């Protein structure tokens, strides 16, 4: 095996230990209000940032097609009972169509 490839694999594994494994193992006793914040507020904060990050990543690549398609997907997920697969098909088709036009 190539030495530099092994280093890349080791770096990614070390990063996983730092950002995924250690935070999951370390439990700190917290006061009630902070515990409530972690369980209720923090996940909402993460998902808001997550949605924006996904949209930003795609919009910076194809501004018009990705903006309209992502808005469509967000709207379908928030306002309708449309399922995951149908929304994924509609969103991807809209993106492809807008790119083609």
């Amino acid at each position, binding site marked *: 095996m190539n030495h530099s490839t092994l280093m*890349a694999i080791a770096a*990614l594994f070390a990063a996983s230990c730092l950002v995924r494994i250690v*935070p999951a*193992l370390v439990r700190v006793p917290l006061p009630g209000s902070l515990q409530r914040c972690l369980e209720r507020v923090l996940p909402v904060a993460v998902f808001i940032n*997550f949605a*924006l990050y996904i949209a930003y990543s795609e919009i910076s690549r194809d501004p018009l097609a990705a903006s309209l398609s992502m808005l469509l997907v967000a709207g379908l997920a928030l306002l309708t009972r449309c399922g995951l697969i149908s929304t994924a098909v509609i969103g991807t088709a809209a993106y492809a169509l807008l790119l083609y036009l």
Partner: protein
Amino acid sequence: MMQGSELEWTQGRSSVWRRVAPTALAIVPVSLLFGVLAGRSDWSLLEVALIGVLGFSGSGQFAVLPLEQSGAGFFTMLLVTASINSRYLPIAFTTAGRLPRPWGRKVLAAHMLGDEAYATERDQDGPGTVLLIRASIFLTWAVAGVLGALLGQLLPAQWVGAEVNLGYPASVVLMYLSMSQLRGRLLQVRQRWLPLLGAVTLCLLGAWGLIQWLGPVYFWIPSVLLATLILTWAKL
């Protein structure tokens, strides 16, 4: 007699697979693409399998490819990948309570945390369900990467065009899952929708500003902290 976690594991397995299958399928093209690119950079199948299993990070894996090619050192690659994946810090912290109790399984489940798994999981999911969701996505990612490396050896170079956005379906799935999670969580406080809508708008504006200022890698921690402060202030 079956223990609670075993019962959950056995009875819910098919419904969990139905839940996780679309997400797992959506990441296949991205992982295939990584495998193709790694194969073209002279990575062996074993190396592609190892990075999928030990590294398991979409953006991180794509980032180390050029770094490895340019001869970057271990700490450079660690800094870059840890920064890219820093979003997992709050996610890992908030989902730690869902993980299996035995130490080995807990470490394994924590390592298999990914964006797609986080968006698929629900608060009420037990450890067996969480492990199954994470393992399904994790194994799909690793196997698709190896298949991609195999494909890369077979496909003519000009067929792998950089202009095709193979990751878009995965982004659509992630957006849908994030919005569904937000809808579920915010509906619990729908009687106070107006101040909450204002708070969410403020969070989005703040996050957008921080992305512009710090970039999409380093905005995560300050932006999540800012959103937490705003939402706490809005009494979520």
